[in-house]
């Protein structure tokens, strides 16, 4: 949050610096008075002084300072009843331990993706947050504050990135053994770049070599590869898997080696992960699967 790339993050970083400066000054003053009270040579000695001292230091000063801080700070509260349409709406569903992402198109249809978020700079994105299992929390420190993702409730959260770049989003509420491994890269594009990217993401994949194996090994039961017969909805959508920056929700960079190792024993990389291991496949089959996945651009 100290390197803001979004409107909310910038406002809060600003708020932080003001408060931090105030904190340091107040701490120095109080400790200065304390040291003086212990060591000072000509200290005031009357009860009358003590009463005033307590009144000023303990009542008047904090009341005034805190009132000012509240006015300044609460002005930054988001207005949750606002009805204006955001520029973009993204449905984010948190699951142990990954993120289901779906972009709402102007016609209301959804483009499914997972574990990576793309946003246009300078536009307001609204996140529709849901959880299917336990409580998670959706947080992109560079862009703004966090919002809990609670089963049974739909929380809305808006962010407005200002700078382009690649940032990191995380789960901020402890959600189980792989809580630390539930992240997602956030790519902020220029608006035109975002439109291009979304159009690409919306396209389906073609059936190609390895697809049959993907189905016969059972992958398609959980994972969808749009445009093919793999239509599972349990795990992350893999249609454009190879174009992402990370695999396993921000846990590993995408590489043939990591994919191999992941297929053999996913829980080695991510404890308590829902995906079973595929050590039973022979090496040639795994190689074929890995190259199929790396082709899903």
């Amino acid at each position, binding site marked *: *949050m*100290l390197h803001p790339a979004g409107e909310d993050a910038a*406002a*809060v970083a600003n*708020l*932080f610096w003001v*408060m*931090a400066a105030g*904190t340091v000054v107040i*701490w120095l003053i*109080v400790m200065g008075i*304390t040291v003086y*009270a*212990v060591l*000072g040579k000509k*200290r*005031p000695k*009357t*009860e009358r*002084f*003590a*009463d005033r*001292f*307590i009144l000023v*230091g*303990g*009542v008047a000063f904090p*009341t005034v300072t*805190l009132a000012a*801080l*509240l006015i300044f*700070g*609460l002005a930054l*509260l*988001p207005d*949750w*009843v606002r009805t204006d349409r955001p520029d973009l709406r993204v449905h984010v569903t948190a699951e142990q331990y990954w993120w289901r992402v779906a972009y709402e198109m102007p016609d209301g249809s959804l483009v499914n993706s997972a574990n990576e978020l793309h946003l246009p700079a300078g536009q307001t994105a609204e996140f529709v947050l849901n959880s299917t299992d*336990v*409580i998670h*929390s959706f*947080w992109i*420190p560079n862009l703004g*504050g*966090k*919002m809990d993702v*609670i*089963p*049974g*409730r739909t*929380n*809305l959260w808006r962010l407005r990135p200002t700078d382009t770049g690649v940032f990191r989003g995380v789960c*901020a*509420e*402890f959600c189980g*053994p*792989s*809580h*630390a*491994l539930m992240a997602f890269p956030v790519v902020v594009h220029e608006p035109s770049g975002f439109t291009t990217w979304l159009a690409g993401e919306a396209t389906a994949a073609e059936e190609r070599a390895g697809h049959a194996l993907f189905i016969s090994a059972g992958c398609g039961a959980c994972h969808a590869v749009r445009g093919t017969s793999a239509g599972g909805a349990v795990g992350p959508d893999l249609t454009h898997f190879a174009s992402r920056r990370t695999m396993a929700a921000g846990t590993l960079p995408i590489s043939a080696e990591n994919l191999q190792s992941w297929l053999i024993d996913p829980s080695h990389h991510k*404890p308590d992960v829902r995906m079973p291991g595929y050590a039973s496949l022979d090496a040639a089959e795994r190689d074929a699967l890995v190259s199929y996945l790396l082709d899903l651009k």
Partner: protein
Amino acid sequence: MTDKRAETEQLAKVWDNPRGWRALSDVNNSIIGLWYFAAAFAFMLFAGALALIIRVQLFVPDNTLVTSEFYSQVFTLHGTVMMFLFAVPIFEAVAILILPGMLGARDLPFPRLSAFGFWCYLIGGVFVCGSIFFNSAPDAGWFMYPPLSTEQSGIGADIWLLGLSFIEVASIAAAVELIVGVLKCRAPGMHINLTPLYGWYVLVVGGMILFAFPPLIAGDILFELERLLDWPFFDVTRGGDPLLWQHLFWIFGHPEVYIIFLPAIALLAMIVPTFAQREITGYSWIVLSALGTGFLSFGLWVHHMFTTGLPSVSLGFFSAASEAVAVPTGIQIFAFIATVMLGSVVRSVPMLFCLGALAVFIIGGLTGVMVAVAPFDFQVHDTYFIVAHLHYTLIGGMLFPVMAGICYYYPLIMGKELSRAYGIWSFWLMLIGFNMAFLPMHLTGMLGMPRRVFTYGADRGWTELNMISSVGAFIFAAGFLLLIWDCVRPKRHQKQVRRNVWNAGTLEWAARFGNSWGMRSIPEVNSRYPLWDDKDFLRKIDEGEGLLADAKEGRRETLVTSVLDAQPIQVLRVGTPSWLPMIAAAGLGCVFIFMTFKWWLPMGLGAVIFLSAVLRWLWTGSAEIPEKETKDIGGGKHIPLYVSGYKSTGWWAMFITMTGDLTAFLALLFGYFFFWTIHPDFPPPGIDGPGWFWPAIAGVFILCAWGLTLGARLVNAAGRPGLARLFLALGWLAALAGGLGLMAGPWTTGLDPTAHAYPAIVWALVIWILAHLATGMLMQGYGFARLLYGKATPTHDADLWNIALYWHFAAFSGVLAAVVIGGFPYLT
């Protein structure tokens, strides 16, 4: 003079601590307090070791020292043990140890209750801590948010729930004991406005425990019903809501912070005047601020839930309330500084720790002001910034003052001195180590590190900060261990310290080392610092010129005084060493522990042991009819040995206990209405309520049971104990009918508690009331037997007063429950 010597010997004999293996049956506050203290520090060291595991794991990125599963257990237990097994019990330990002396009492009013609380605490604590050695510790974080914690397999969550519920019993027992102690056991003449500040803080904190712990107990009950019987209070698929737990937990959890903080500040309020060598300034300011802090702390809980998607107006309100609590805190701090300024400081180790506490706590307070601003909290919530903030408040606001208190009271309790050099070394190591560990965490958090992550990548830029924190943690631990070593190292060759070694002005320093009975005689007090204001004070005490200078009848006695102006109203005979508290605690322990494993038979056996022990304890050890009506306590005062009603300590204890009990019931009702607010249709479509008929019948019978119980006390007082017995018997039948009627409502309408949160909460309310009616029936039976055996008579009727008092509360809860479950569905 020989008379006086014989008196002293008699006192010593009466108050002698049991020796050998019988020492474990002791109940005296000076012993129980020490045990409590030692246990609290043992648990603290355990939790500290867990913290060091955390710091080693985070020392380098991508560390594989411990597994994620183990790490979850480690941080969950670290938080749980520090909060429930150290921070709160240390308050109880210190208060049990020093409060009676401060008030001029010989012991607390219910020593056996202290012992019972201690054994509950020890058994429960060992059970909770021990779980990690079997890899089955709770692992969902110390606030146990469902659904993560409800869906977990294994018994970790059950251990947390049941183990801690058991320990909460100990906390509430101590709160009852200490509140009654402050209200009723002050030395004669010690008007409420002369009470040492520590006493005031104990009063406030005791009160807070009574209103804060019960919501958590209510939450625990709902939680365990969900885990054990699948009642879906927190399951969204069946009408539950995980946020209900968060509300109940934090309605407890925020006051909890002040329950920890205020008693430590109370120690500062005793230490600062001693070393400033003058009375505290702004006594009234401090008392009012303590009350204000206690009150406000119940209006802040939502600031732990800022990011759950609550409406802006709630955020604004709770932000403002959270800032407001800085005002009373500020007043207390400035009053201490003013005291120092007006006095002249004697440099000493306790004072050094006080100053360190101030420096550290103020940082925690100021970052608290920051996170109370909701938009800022959106960023730092659940990050290391919060970890830093909470450790600054808890270590600055609790641990440093407790260390100051240890250095200050060690000579009083142990009769020996601590090393000044060790103290200074320990202080600087702790101060430097602490800041090195926790100051960088603010930054780590703002750079995006969430709390409770077992690993992090090298590319995050958190590596160096985490390394600094880890090194600091070890320096901090070294400083802490140094002081502990200084406390426990053998000091056989050191000579005993002189009395009142710091020249303090308050009453606890009038005791001589080694007397478990406090002062030789109980003085009349007419100032806040009697040792300073009356130079002759100690001599009068020692020569037995005060009150209650003897123990002729061979009984342990202490004075009970009136609440406001401390006029003696009773010579209370307090409990003597007994195995019953330990047996009762062990029985109750069996209930909670075996429930975890679902071993129903041993659990039932435990319940029987518990009930038998408690009944025997009450039958033989309470409301005993004395051999004479009054006792000459000296100074021409003849004070009754038996009182009943609101003059007696027993009545107050019942009143206070039932206040807490009512709070728990109201927390359950809160659950009922919470479900109403989140469901558009309540009761939900397809599920009918329990109807109005049976609840109405139940309400009427419960009122009858109450009326008959109250009537029993009145007719007994009018000299008709036989009629009173009849009333109790009829009341027993009415209570039985009331209970059956209440159960008939949801039973006949076929409410299935596993189907939806609505029938589940109705049943939970019904079960709560049934348990209370059953307890009430047990009491009616007890009263009946007391009358029958002449243990209660028309003039000695404390039992009947207390039973009637119980029934005021039980009937109120019962009727309210009947009205809500029977009537409310017709309103919506």
